[in-house]
């Protein structure tokens, strides 16, 4: 009889933990989705909201906005972390979800630069900041909430479901974007269809808010509140007290900084490298990333669960070390797979088509060159030259050396190279799962309950938002620095890897030397 009661109680506990995981994960996944659609559509957003006179400046402005979205995250971590330690986890991460959903929905409705001028980028910038702020508060809340519901000894396993949401959120964002783009066609998508993924967010957030409203507060927080042990000033307690500050620093330098760059390299830089350095066609490059993410995602749970058995430290450190050692060879192989210089052209299949049309006050000449290679790779180059009909304007642009065609290069890989490329990205996703799978459990366990939300959120968002979030900006810049002249290919397309390799190396050494491999029981203190 007693045995039956124990079994029923255990089953109820597992079932309740599952409900907590599902409700928390869905909301966090949607927040990541909201956050990623902006980054994935950076190019279109730059065309819609930033002046077109200088495309590089427009793209950089978007990247800066992207970075702002990341850089603001630590502030969200502080603001909402403090709130979560004062009033509770449940209401705080409900508020972050509503802010995120609202700002994403609003981005989808903002009129373009052509319609409202400077207000367009200003509003988008403000909304992007709100997104960053909300995300800063969300993750720490979800991880803390799940960890505080999880049985001791299984925290790595249960929190790893929260860890899958960042990757699944990206997967969902890529999937929705590809689906809408394929359904509407490229032109309509670039015109207004890109707004759909943003607007769709309101529906997803609505469902998630409904689910979260029905959840109960974290049992550890409730107990602590009942005993009057909550912190009166979580910020001061987290960052002014030496004993806690030293843990914040070790979490940042020994874990989250390295984890952040490994994560962003494996998921975002890989996509950017495929599209910009390898010129792999838009749909194919996104499919490569999506498939690799989908196959790799279960490993978050594998490594999360494994960390319950052998400790968090060595799994995270192994992920960093292998990433540092293998990034260059992996990216070299990716580059070689798509490099047309290594391929034999089937000259008889080459076609060149030129079309000329008058659009408004300009003549637009489009030249499309298609090439086929012996291994099945196809290459398409589209050159679009816009020349004003007005002779004076034409002469003025020619004098400024601005009469240059816009060039778009697209490489479509054959089946075998496509699978190889998925393999190269998948290896990087595995590194991501090693460093990221156990990290939520690691972070929640090194801080006491009364200031956990605040203390764990800050190093997480500095590591991921600042160190990781700046990977695309800094790596692109490092590659650009090796370009001998505008229009020529960079001398070292792998130069961008220097930044993640350096940060992950330092993080590895610090982590190995100073982080303990022991996990704690995370009692209310």
């Amino acid at each position: 009889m007693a045995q039956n009661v124990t079994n029923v109680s255990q089953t109820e506990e597992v079932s309740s933990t599952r409900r907590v995981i599902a409700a928390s994960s869905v909301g966090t996944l949607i927040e990541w989705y909201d956050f990623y659609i902006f980054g994935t559509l950076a190019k279109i957003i730059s065309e819609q909201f930033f002046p077109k006179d200088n495309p590089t400046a427009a793209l950089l402005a978007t990247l800066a906005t992207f970075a702002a979205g990341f850089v603001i995250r630590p502030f969200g971590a502080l603001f909402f972390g403090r709130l979560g330690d004062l009033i509770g986890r449940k209401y705080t991460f409900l508020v972050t979800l509503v802010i995120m959903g609202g700002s994403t929905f609003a981005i989808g409705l903002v009129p373009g630069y052509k319609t409202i001028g400077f207000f367009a980028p200003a509003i988008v910038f403000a909304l992007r900041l709100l997104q960053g702020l909300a995300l800063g508060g969300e993750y720490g809340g979800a991880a803390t909430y799940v960890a505080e519901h999880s049985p001791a000894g299984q925290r790595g396993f249960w929190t790893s479901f929260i860890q899958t949401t960042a990757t699944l959120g990206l997967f969902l964002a890529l999937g929705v974007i590809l689906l809408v783009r394929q359904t509407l066609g490229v032109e309509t998508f670039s015109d207004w269809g890109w707004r759909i993924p943003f607007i769709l967010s309101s529906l997803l957030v609505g469902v998630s808010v409904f689910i979260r409203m029905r959840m109960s507060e974290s049992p550890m927080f409730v107990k602590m509140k009942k005993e009057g042990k909550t912190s009166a000033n979580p910020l001061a307690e987290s960052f002014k007290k030496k004993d806690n500050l030293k843990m914040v620093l070790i979490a940042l330098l020994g874990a989250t900084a390295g984890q952040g760059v490994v994560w962003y390299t494996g998921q975002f830089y890989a996509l950017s490298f495929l599209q910009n350095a390898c010129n792999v066609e838009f749909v194919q490059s996104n499919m490569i990333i999506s498939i690799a993410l989908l196959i790799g995602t279960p490993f978050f749970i594998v490594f999360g669960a494994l960390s319950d058995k052998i400790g968090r430290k060595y799994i995270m450190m192994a992920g960093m070390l292998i990433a540092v050692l293998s990034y260059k060879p992996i990216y070299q192989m990716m580059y070689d797979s798509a490099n047309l210089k290594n391929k034999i052209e089937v000259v008889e299949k080459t076609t060149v088509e030129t079309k000329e049309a008058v659009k408004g006050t300009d003549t637009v000449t489009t030249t499309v060159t298609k090439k086929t290679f012996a291994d099945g790779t196809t290459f398409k180059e589209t050159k679009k030259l816009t020349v004003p009909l007005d002779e004076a304007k034409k002469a003025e642009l020619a004098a400024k050396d601005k009469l240059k065609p816009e060039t778009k290069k697209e490489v479509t890989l054959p089946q075998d190279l496509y699978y190889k490329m998925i393999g190269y990205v998948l290896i990087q996703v595995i590194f991501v799962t090693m460093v990221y799978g156990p990290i939520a459990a690691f972070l929640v366990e090194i801080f006491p309950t009364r200031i956990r939300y605040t203390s764990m959120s800050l190093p997480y968002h500095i590591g991921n938002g600042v160190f990781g979030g700046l990977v695309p900006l800094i790596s692109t810049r490092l590659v650009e620095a090796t370009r001998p002249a505008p229009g020529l290919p960079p001398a070292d397309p792998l130069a961008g890897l220097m930044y993640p390799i350096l940060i992950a190396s330092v993080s590895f050494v610090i982590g190995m030397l100073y982080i303990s491999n022991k996990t704690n029981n995370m009692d209310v203190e």
Partner: protein
Amino acid sequence: MSAIKKLFGILWSLMGIGIIPLVIMQAMKEIAAKPSEENWIFWSIVIVVLMPIISFSLITFGVFALKGEYDVLE
């Protein structure tokens, strides 16, 4: 192990201090060579956001390590 942790503490602090002139000099050099909007934005982000975080955290962490604050974490 404690001695190594302390010794490395000096290294982290020196790295945190050394990074400041290194980044500022590189920024000045690149902006002087090409004072474009791109350069200004990029170096502003590095100097205002990234550099202070790296320097402050490395210096403080190094000092803590040197004082033996992390010796108990085994």
